[in-house]
């Protein structure tokens, strides 16, 4: 049974320059205890998709569709109800640990805050639990560290603190937004290992543009392009048998495959290309791709792709 199911989700931002169509008609299911990777180039709408699940978008945003969590549509909850979901049921580890920790509050207090709120512990108990969480993410000398400020932490430690904060209230689901971005190779490896360990019993949406990291952590992977899902399959299938030309291009751009970047630039989300969103950059595009919009179809069992080659 799926824990989270997204249907026909559209997220648009009205701006001075036009409507930014960041998420366009997305359907997605995440099963209990599944770790799903969401990959795609920068600016394709991954963070927006993650944020829309816990409704952390500006009030002016227009959101359509359904996001059902344990059967309830999160988009229909009141502000008060969604706050009970955030942090407690679904935790989001935000993209940038350096700027996502409040510089004037102690790290331990920032973790304890959520514990106090959702688990009803008093200050001291919450702080003790926060120290425990820091230990769980393998921060040495956690008692002392809990009383330090974010600027006293290294980049890797900040990421760990963010993870600890996300795990603090033992949420059923975690949305992790690029937790390995900007870390050097050794630290990255440690964080990946940690993420794997702490999420064995959890459901996770793992956002990244690092395919290698996704391969290590995720059971399934979905590929996003210009606000749409282009392909969905289990991790092995994505690597062994990438179907969508965009996925193929993405794989070819990995260092191990020779760093061949996909030609062209990602499209503006204000003026989306007609037909297949990827056609201007696709080697296989023909007249149909330019005018008609392909649907996401199940090409093989549990392997979906949005491309006319398989229609």
């Amino acid at each position, binding site marked *: 049974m799926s824990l989270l199911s997204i249907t026909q989700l559209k997220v648009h931002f009205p*701006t*001075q*320059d036009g409507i930014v169509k960041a998420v366009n008609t997305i359907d997605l299911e995440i099963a209990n205890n599944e770790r799903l990777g969401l990959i795609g180039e920068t600016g394709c709408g991954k963070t927006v998709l993650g944020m829309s699940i816990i409704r952390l978008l500006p009030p*002016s945003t227009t959101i359509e569709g359904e996001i059902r969590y344990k059967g309830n549509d999160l988009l229909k909850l009141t502000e008060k109800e969604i706050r009970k979901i955030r942090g407690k049921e679904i935790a989001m580890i935000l993209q940038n640990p350096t700027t996502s920790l409040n510089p004037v509050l102690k790290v331990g207090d920032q973790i304890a805050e959520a514990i106090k709120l959702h688990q009803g512990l008093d200050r001291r108990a919450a702080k003790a639990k926060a120290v425990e969480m820091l230990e769980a993410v393998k921060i040495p000398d956690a008692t002392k560290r809990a009383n330090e400020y974010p600027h006293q932490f290294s980049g890797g430690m900040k990421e760990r603190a963010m993870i600890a904060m996300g795990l603090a209230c033992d949420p059923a689901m975690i949305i992790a937004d690029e937790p390995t971005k900007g870390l050097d190779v050794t630290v990255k490896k440690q964080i990946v290992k940690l993420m794997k360990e702490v999420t064995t019993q959890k459901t996770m949406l793992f956002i990244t543009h690092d395919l290698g990291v996704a391969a290590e952590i995720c059971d399934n992977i979905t590929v996003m392009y210009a606000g749409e899902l282009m392909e969905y399959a289990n991790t092995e299938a994505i690597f062994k048998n990438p179907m969508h030309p965009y996925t193929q291009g993405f794989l070819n751009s990995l260092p191990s495959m020779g760093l061949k970047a996909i030609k062209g630039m990602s499209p503006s989300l204000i003026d989306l290309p007609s037909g297949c969103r990827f056609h201007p950059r696709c080697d296989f595009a023909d007249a149909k791709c330019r005018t008609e919009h392909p649907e996401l179809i199940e090409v093989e069992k549990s392997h979906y792709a949005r491309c006319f080659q398989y229609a």
Partner: protein
Amino acid sequence: MKQRSDSRFISFVAQFKQNRAALAGATIVLLLVFVTLFAPQLSPHDPIKACLDERLTAPCMEYPFGTDQLGRCIFSRVLYGSRVSLSVGLIVVGIAATIGVVLGIISGYCGGVPDEIIMRLVDAMLAFPSLFLALAIAGILGAGFINVILAITVVEWTRYARVMRGSILSVKENYYVEAAKSLGASDFYIVTRHIVPNAITPIIVVATLGIATVILAAASLGFLGFGVQPPTPEWGMMLNDGRLFMRRAPWLMIFPGLAIMITILAFNLLGDGLRDAWDPRLRERRRER
């Protein structure tokens, strides 16, 4: 490089045109300049000639703003008063900006001991509340147009020195300055051709806002009795005269005060608009919405 600043200038103008408040400010400023130039033509009466029969007349057709304790037409005096305010504003800002810019260039470009001396001097000047210092200078020198200008200039130059130094420090590291240096260009050439053109816009923004500050300071000095010599009409002094007749003839202090406020408001609007149009950081923030 030429092209780069051109395109920036075009977007600057486009941005400014969209800002209604700033356009309103610019319009009022133009109107003030017009009033200043054509005060004799626009005034229904002689601003200095006393007419004792008409003392403290309430506003009417003949005297739109009424008359003062000597029977002088307040409307005409307010129109003429713009001459003192605007000319003090422009002259002080002109001199102060020139001094400040030169010292700022020396400070920013040379660094080292000259920089240290100039900046400590700026710090020391800024330790004095500005009206206190201006008042002390104007008060000791005695009332008069030139003395007012001197007193306010002494306290005003520092802001230009700071801004100029700041922009020079940020421009100095730029590649084209490095390039010019490595090509053996003289210091004078580098400063006049590369550094100043790039650093001058912040100065214009500060100067526009500075005019508002200077006009306010001049009016304050006038109000305290250290402005221009009577009977030259000056808004601050008119307010002070009017204060004694507040109960019987409140128009004496209403209209000059309104004139000061509108003038300062106009320069503030214009300056804010120029700053917003220039500072891309502020512009971006606006677009995010």
